[in-house]
């Protein structure tokens, strides 16, 4: 029996495993379905990773490499080419690999499966079904891992970070990127990516626009883009046709949690991830979750930090058993889309609590209020908040312990 099984060897799983090792566990296994560790970082060959974690600007593979190197000097076992088929609430794990189909057992589990991209179906784009419509990540994989081009004349729907990165990448590889089209009146990606990936290459960004038709029987031949009103409905008469052979979709990410659901772990419909405590424990004791499987992050640096907490908590659980504690609930106030964690253990040993959340709309000068009933517990001033950028609060635990529920609210200053 393993002390800890980590499901997924991307940035979250790597950090969780290393942290569990540092906190005293010796019998740890990472189960990774790909043929190498690193997860999606391996295809993210652009820079911008690690500014917080390592105070350096690294590429995705370099960032992953740092953690892979750290693990080399540990006893952490890595099983590659290994897919977890099922986990049970009593921590049996059914795995499949060319070496065999088997059931392993672990005292604790970290769920770090990452996320997947939303597809054309998720947004029901009307039209025909030709080739040439890709998720941005699939096109990125073709290009960066396999050296293959998804197309030559490209429109990108959605201004999420992967889409923006791919606008630049496809341009550098000789494709003509005609436009980036965003349904919302603001971009879904980081400001730095708008500047560096669109503006610097003269690629127009159409905000409050969407793709309303896909044409072509075999390969994509063209699309229609329309402006949308405040209810996101296309406005007649605003049609723009683009002749393109490729449409890349960067329309959101969904935490990958089929295993989580099947194990019967309580899920938060707002994040599509498990409900977690401040130590990243799920509703089943001894099963923890972290990274994009819990909520979609903008920066891998925060994934690592969160996952280190999960790994440490798994080690604590293996050594000392479950924490028997009352629960404090975190409630989403006005304009807060979700929070992670959603719950706190009242008796947590942590001196401060990291709360991550996203706002539902754009705020210029604003404040974030942490309160319980009429009691204001803490106020944080923010110069600027957009849904595309994850917000982070650090609250001293002692300020929270006396309450049963606390509410996080975003307000204009």
């Amino acid at each position: 029996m393993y002390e800890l099984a980590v499901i997924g060897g991307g940035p979250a799983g790597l950090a969780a495993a290393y942290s569990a090792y540092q906190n005293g566990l010796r019998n740890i296994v990472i189960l990774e379905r790909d043929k190498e560790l690193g997860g999606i970082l391996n295809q993210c060959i652009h820079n911008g990773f690690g500014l917080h974690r390592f105070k350096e600007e690294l590429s995705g593979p370099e960032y992953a490499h740092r953690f892979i190197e750290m693990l080399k000097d540990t006893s952490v076992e890595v099983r590659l080419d290994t897919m977890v088929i099922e986990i049970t609430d009593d921590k049996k794990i059914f795995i499949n690999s060319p070496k065999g189909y088997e059931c392993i057992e672990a005292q604790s589990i970290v769920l770090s499966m990452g996320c997947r991209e939303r597809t054309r179906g998720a947004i029901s784009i009307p039209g025909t079904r030709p080739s040439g419509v890709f998720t941005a990540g699939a096109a990125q994989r073709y290009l960066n891992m396999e050296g293959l081009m998804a197309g030559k004349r490209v429109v990108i729907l959605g201004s999420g970070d992967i889409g923006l990165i791919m606008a630049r990448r496809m341009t550098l590889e000789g494709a003509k990127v005609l436009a980036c089209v965003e349904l919302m009146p603001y971009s879904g990606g980081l400001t730095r990516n708008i500047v560096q990936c669109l503006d610097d290459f003269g690629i127009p960004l159409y905000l409050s626009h969407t793709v309303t038709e896909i044409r072509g029987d075999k390969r994509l031949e063209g699309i229609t883009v329309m402006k949308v009103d405040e209810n996101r409905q296309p406005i007649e008469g605003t049609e723009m046709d683009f002749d393109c052979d490729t449409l890349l979709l960067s329309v959101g990410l969904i935490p990958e949690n089929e295993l989580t659901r099947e194990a019967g772990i309580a899920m938060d419909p707002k994040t599509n991830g498990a409900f977690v405590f401040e130590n990243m424990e799920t509703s089943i004791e001894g099963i923890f979750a972290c990274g994009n499987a819990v909520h979609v992050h903008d920066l891998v640096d925060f994934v690592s930090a969160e996952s280190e907490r999960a790994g440490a908590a798994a080690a604590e659980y293996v050594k000392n058993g479950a924490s028997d504690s009352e629960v404090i609930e975190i409630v989403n106030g006005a304009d807060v889309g979700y929070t992670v964690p959603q719950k706190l253990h009242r008796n947590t040993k942590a001196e401060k609590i990291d709360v991550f959340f996203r706002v539902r709309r754009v705020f210029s000068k604003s404040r974030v209020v942490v309160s319980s009933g009429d009691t204001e517990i803490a106020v944080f001033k923010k110069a600027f908040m957009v849904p595309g950028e994850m917000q982070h609060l650090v609250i001293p635990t002692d300020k929270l312990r006396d309450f049963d529920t606390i509410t996080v609210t975003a307000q204009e200053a």
Partner: protein
Amino acid sequence: MYDVAIIGCGITGASIAYRLSRFDLKTVVIEKENDVAMGATRANSAIVHAGYDPEENTLMAKLNVRSVELTKELCKNLSVPYAQIGSLVLAFSEEEAQHIEKLYKRGINNGVEGLRVLSAEETKEKEPFVSDDVVCSLYAPTAAIISPWEYALALAETAVVNGTQIMFSSEVSDIKKTDEMFVIRAGEKEIKAKTVINAAGVQADRIHDMVLPHEFEIIPNKGAYFILDKCEGTRTKHVVFQCPNKDGKGVLVSPTVHGNLIVGPNAVPSERYDTSAKLSDLVFVKRKAIKSVPSVDFRTNIKNFSGVRPNSTESDFIIKSTDGFIDVAGIKSPGLASAAGIAEYVEQLMCNSGIRLSEKTSYIKDRKQIRFKELSHEERKKLVESNPLYGRVICRCETVTEGEIVDAIHRPIVPRTVDGIKRRCGAGLGRCQGGFCGPRVVEILSRELKVDREEIAKDRDVSYILKRRER
């Protein structure tokens, strides 16, 4: 010279090919597209209807009801996903309740077994999520759901195993009739056959007119669908219809054999090959579906598609033999549900016209397909020990292994496209719609078929996925 040439390898052509493959006949199937089931067969409601809907004494009624048992048996023998889950037709008004009575009587006359009219309470008991506005319903326990493309593929593959030839990417452009044979022109090919069976779907009128005087026309009619994520797959337990009206059988909500929820279709006149789904189609389908099952969560949609029905100027199926030329045309709904009976009927027509059908001394009527997902833990263990390729999951949404994909590529009809793989083993059918496994399937196809990845198409001929780089 062939004894029989079948034009079209949708469910109708494939069923006939399978049926005839047990006889000592030299048979060829001529298909315009690059795979089996490329027309209406792959884009429909995937239902084996019970048979209460077609008017009494029509071929549709007779063949649909006859096929209920035949289809079940075939699916069992050929390892085709099939589940007899029963259907409900909902009535929302007194007028519709009267229609339910009419359908019930018609069903009894057609020979449908087990039909019952259910009260509102009984209906809600069977289907807790249907609208509170339901007045009564018609319950048909013999209705089933099926994987239409796997059904057609299984039939066609087994026919090939028994010696049938299939020519793909071969569009028939001309047929000449001489005294003793038909000469069929398909691209560069010239195919001679004693008997021609016209199973050309939306092209059946054009094929007919190449040989015989103009008699009927195909009136293509399009319907759009939603496929929802498996988390919605238990929203209904039965096929839930609304009362049929002038627009067809109306919008249905049903589980699929793959565990999803299917919602659709509408009905609008279309071009023969226009499988686009317009915004207006999708809006209409949504609105209608919510009338039956208000809680359907369309935010979980994973795919939209449209299919084209080969409706015709006749109200019934057009199945008849004229001097060695057999029309099997206008096979609209319930065409999929009637396919097995249609093939049997065509066999009788051939017999009646004096063609000698003698059974082969040995032929194969069964087919096995390994589906990793459906195996027990113990069976999976053994399978991976026997071949490590089953130990590598390629499609994570549908849990399809590399072994199954390689099996699919080496089956009697070789798929050359990513969607061909999807139809055979389900890779890419799931919630991420091939976003994850697509590049891996391209790689496996390229390796197994020994062609460049840039040569691999998504679906129809030349629908290439990747562009060659010029540097």
